[in-house]
């Protein structure tokens, strides 16, 4: 490894070697290397092939602005080699190539380019339409980026954090650091986001400014008010200063990537500039790189980017880089500067001292060499004279482009500014500020002062305006050099060859001309037609040049350049990072462990884990039989349970329940239902009265989370005095059901449980071995049953007591499958199974629950219940019996004749009845008893099952068993 290890600006640790595998061979670099710098240091110059023409591509930027260095790393495609840190043992492969990118077998595509104009695929495969499906296969094979295996599983650990801050600063360069320090000095909590692994930005690779950047960074890093996130790229910026970002782990972090969501009172965007690519023939040939790329390679990574270079630049940063690279040992043959005048003369003098010719008003016209740069031709911008140079490196840049994404995403506009040549952010959203180089400042003092001003303004957003402090900061900035004149947009006179405006999509200037000739005169449209800026790097390469080319070359009447729209994610983000740690947000009942031990097959039902069945039998036949003949015990703790109380409680209950709730007696339950405003049934449950204006009610499991919200919503205008307490998690529920249920319970309860003392639909409170329970005599499964509500902490103890008491009566667990069959046999419905969005109270046969004497305006859904009571053409709930008991229709299968007439809600083979029965929603004309139905399961071509509409309930129609 041949690095310039003596530079104090280095960010690698040369003593710590890192080895990766590339194309099957080991490559060694240093800790701190990116994949791209490690490979570049190891002699790799061609990193991949372009999307359309398979042109060789090399290291061009170091900021991830183009897809040139996208590679597959450990099977993960499209990893950005230039921004991803190398780690020991990484296996790296190039993409979109057959074999070594230096000798790609698809390279012939480049020769086909004359027959592949812009919009070629659109036009060529437009007609006939049948051509496209065939063509797409070939196109996809030749074009495209990385491949992902359908069996690929993302490795690594992902995390997410949600932060609040007074001030969030995006960009850890000099302006951002100054802003963070100013806000911190005002006593505010600051978050600073920086995409590189270190702070410093514009200062951190430049010999005269490195120390200054370092001392700023030291102050920021030791400031207790500032939390610094490096390796953190902003994804999006939204209403009211919501900033999303993701952070790459440094190798020792507990995560590989972490998603950040930050809410800040004020935001400072100081994202600086990227370089505007220079447009000339073959401007993306390996060996052409941006100024900051060449400069950072040597200063940050200690790598000489080449041996003999020609510079074609457009601002003083280019002159400075040429001098510094020359000082560090690279041969600089000459510097072409598109500016005819206006250079920093001190830099020009130093170039002259070193004997490096400076060609003012000259620019690169073409690069030559295959596959790497061997030659460059320079030309005067008027095209009169030209010269050629043999070289292995062309350092090219046309000026700067501000990075305004975080501002425009939040709603800022962009206005073309003729002095800087920038699209400057204007009409910034409230409490959002811009600072630094993105505003056109290039003087280091001015950049810092601009950051300071933004920090003071952000502090005012949080602490209240302090005009004098803002004025002072404005004055300090006003005394310094203002925004500099930007580099003019110039394309050298190009005779032949491709000039790429977008590397990712292989879009050339000629393609843009073709689009304009085709009538697309606005950048947004040209972008779509030519695909410029739609690749992985988005606007990184073409974002500035495309609108300038369209707006300033007189090709379009739309003379004021208009930028294209930036959208999130600003930086490509792994879906895994969005998913974060992906915690399973679920709940377990107090009996979870116990049921698992008893062989319970647990499954997710909404937010809960519940036992579907115990043992291997999917039909749960033994559990069903035991409930019908002995006694079963079910954990029903997931039921919604609420206390509602207060002077106006009955008004509130009458509002949401269809019944008249004042009819509830203190020792009996009242069964009722809730509808929405459309009269559609949304819930059912029971209500008990526990005291004066004090009630306890249950909801279905699925409504537990939204019932309080529902009741408060429908009483929101009333100012009624009542309160709701959600007791769902505070209470567990045991359902003890079967002919032996009373015998079991009598052994342990301190109350008279006889049918006279505690009849069906009765409510009692008593103790079981001193455990206080609220007992309800219900019959959901159609047998004698007791539903015991008990404090969650008592659940395991009570369960054990009852299991022991029931042992002699054959007690055993039953799960959801058994319950589902048992209640279906009894014709009891589950809201959501036997009803859907459109199903009214009448449709399921519960219309009798509606108390019509109540004022309609007082009851949610009453008006619609009246409107739909006798409405024709509705789906009605009926019982069905399959003709062939062995052929049970599947839940959800459709009932048909010439068209769809309904569907099966639940159907099972009933061992109790030795028939296949179920419930279905059918059109009212088909609802009469005895109607023959045809059921289509969609299995075989047109096979239909026959069924008949039969009366419900199927089991114990007189209801004797639950009243035993």
């Amino acid at each position: 490894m041949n690095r310039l290890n003596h530079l104090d600006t280095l960010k690698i640790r040369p003593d710590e070697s890192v080895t990766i595998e590339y194309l099957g061979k080991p490559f060694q670099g240093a800790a701190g290397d990116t994949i791209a710098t490690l490979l570049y240091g190891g002699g790799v110059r061609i990193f991949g092939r372009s999307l359309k023409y398979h042109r060789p591509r090399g290291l061009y930027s170091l900021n991830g602005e183009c897809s040139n260095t996208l590679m597959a790393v450990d099977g993960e495609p499209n990893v950005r080699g230039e921004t991803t840190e190398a780690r020991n043992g990484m296996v790296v492969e190039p993409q979109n190539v057959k074999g070594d990118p230096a000798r790609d077998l698809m390279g012939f595509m480049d020769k086909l380019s004359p027959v592949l104009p812009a919009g070629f695929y659109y036009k060529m495969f437009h007609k006939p339409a049948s051509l496209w499906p065939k063509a797409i296969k070939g196109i996809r094979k030749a074009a495209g980026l990385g491949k992902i295996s359908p069996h690929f599983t993302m490795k690594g650990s992902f995390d997410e954090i949600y932060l609040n801050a007074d001030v969030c600063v995006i960009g850890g360069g000099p302006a951002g650091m100054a802003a963070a320090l100013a806000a911190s000095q005002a006593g505010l909590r600051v978050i600073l986001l920086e995409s590189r692994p270190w702070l410093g930005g514009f200062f951190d690779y430049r010999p005269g400014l490195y120390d200054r950047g370092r001392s700023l960074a030291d102050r920021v890093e030791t400031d207790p008010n500032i939390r610094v996130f490096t390796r953190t790229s902003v994804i999006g910026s939204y209403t009211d200063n919501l900033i999303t970002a993701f952070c790459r782990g440094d190798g020792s972090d507990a995560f590989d990537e972490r998603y950040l969501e930050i809410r800040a009172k004020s935001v400072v965007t100081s994202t600086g500039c990227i370089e505007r690519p220079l447009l000339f023939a073959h401007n993306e040939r390996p060996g052409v790189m941006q100024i900051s790329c060449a400069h950072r390679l040597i200063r940050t990574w200690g790598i000489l980017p080449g041996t003999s270079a020609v510079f074609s630049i457009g601002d003083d940063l280019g002159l400075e880089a040429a001098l510094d690279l020359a000082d560090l040992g690279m041969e600089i043959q000459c510097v072409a500067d598109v500016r005819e005048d206006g250079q920093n003369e001190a830099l020009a003098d130093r170039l002259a001292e070193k004997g490096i010719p400076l060609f003012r008003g000259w620019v690169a016209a073409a690069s030559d060499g295959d596959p790497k740069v061997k030659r460059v031709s320079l030309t005067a911008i008027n095209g009169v004279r030209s010269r050629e140079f043999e070289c292995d490196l062309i350092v090219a840049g046309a000026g700067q482009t501000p990075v305004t994404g975080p501002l425009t995403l939040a709603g800022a506009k962009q206005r073309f500014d003729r002095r800087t040549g920038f699209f400057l952010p204007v009409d910034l959203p409230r409490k959002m500020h811009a600072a630094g180089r993105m505003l056109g400042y290039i003087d280091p003092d001015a950049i810092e002062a601009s950051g300071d001003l933004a920090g003071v303004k952000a502090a005012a957003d949080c602490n209240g305006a302090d005009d004098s402090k803002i004025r002072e900061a404005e004055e300090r900035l006003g005394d310094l050099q203002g925004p500099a004149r930007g580099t003019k947009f110039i394309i050298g006179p190009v005779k032949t060859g491709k000039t790429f405006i977008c590397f990712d999509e292989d879009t050339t200037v000629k393609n843009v001309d073709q689009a304009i000739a085709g009538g697309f005169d606005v950048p947004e449209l040209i972008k779509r037609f030519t695909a410029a800026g739609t690749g992985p790097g988005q606007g990184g390469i073409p974002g500035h040049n495309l609108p300038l080319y369209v707006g300033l070359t007189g090709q379009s009447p739309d003379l004021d350049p208009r930028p294209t729209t930036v959208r999130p994610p600003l930086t490509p983000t792994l879906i895994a990072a969005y998913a974060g740690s992906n915690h399973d947000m679920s709940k377990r009942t107090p009996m979870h462990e116990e049921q698992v031990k008893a062989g319970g097959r647990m499954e997710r039902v909404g937010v809960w884990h519940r036992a579907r069945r115990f043992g291997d039998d999917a039909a749960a036949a033994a559990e069903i039989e035991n409930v019908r003949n002995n006694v079963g015990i079910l954990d029903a703790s997931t039921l919604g349970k609420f206390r509602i109380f207060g002077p106006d409680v009955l008004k509130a209950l009458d509002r949401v329940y269809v019944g008249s709730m004042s009819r509830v007696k203190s020792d009996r339950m009242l069964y009722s239902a809730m509808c929405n405003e459309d009269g559609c049934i949304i819930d059912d449950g029971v209500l008990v009265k526990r005291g004066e204006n004090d009630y306890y009610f249950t909801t279905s499991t699925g409504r537990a989370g939204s019932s309080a919200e529902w009741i408060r919503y429908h009483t929101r205008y009333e100012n009624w005095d009542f309160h709701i307490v959600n007791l769902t998690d505070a209470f567990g529920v045991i359902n003890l059901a079967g002919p032996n249920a009373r015998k079991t319970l009598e052994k342990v309860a301190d109350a008279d449980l006889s049918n006279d003392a505690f009849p069906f639909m009765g409510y009692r409170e008593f103790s079981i071995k001193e455990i206080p329970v609220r007992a309800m005599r219900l019959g959901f499964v159609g047998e004698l049953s007791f539903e015991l509500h008990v404090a969650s902490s008592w659940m395991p103890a009570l369960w054990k007591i009852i299991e022991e008491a029931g042992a002699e009566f054959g007690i055993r667990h039953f799960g959801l499958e058994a319950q589902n069959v048992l209640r279906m046999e009894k014709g009891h419905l589950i809201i959501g199974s036997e009803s859907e969005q459109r199903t009214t109270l009448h449709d399921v046969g519960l219309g009798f629950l509606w108390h019509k004497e109540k004022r309609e305006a007082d009851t949610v859904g009453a008006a619609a219940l009246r409107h739909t009571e006798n409405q024709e053409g509705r789906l009605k709930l009926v019982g069905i019996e399959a003709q062939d008991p062995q052929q049970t229709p599947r839940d959800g299968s459709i009932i048909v004749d010439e068209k769809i007439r309904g569907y099966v809600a639940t159907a099972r083979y009933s061992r109790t009845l030795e028939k296949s029965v179920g419930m279905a929603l059918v059109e009212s004309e088909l609802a009469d008893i005895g109607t023959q139905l045809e059921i289509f399961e969609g299995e075989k071509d047109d096979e239909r099952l026959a069924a008949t509409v039969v009366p419900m309930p199927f089991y114990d129609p007189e209801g004797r068993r639950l009243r035993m």
Partner: protein
Amino acid sequence: MALTITCPICGARNGYEFRYGGEEKGPKPDEAALRSPEAWCDYIHFNRCKAGAQEEWWFHRDGCGAWFTIHRDTVTNREIPGKEAGI
């Protein structure tokens, strides 16, 4: 939902904590108006969908559980500051 919403009890909080409850339309019309299915349907289902300042209901689902109204500019998707929230 990225916006912040000012709950009258909890103050300005992340919009993701709340559930939207529709435009403020006033209390339900009286009994007579509900007699016609059309009038009832208009009240329940029709919205003004105003572009600009709108009073609307929000529920502090992951918070205190209050229903209240705010004024929001539907064009900028921002709460209009200064307009007092009401219950």
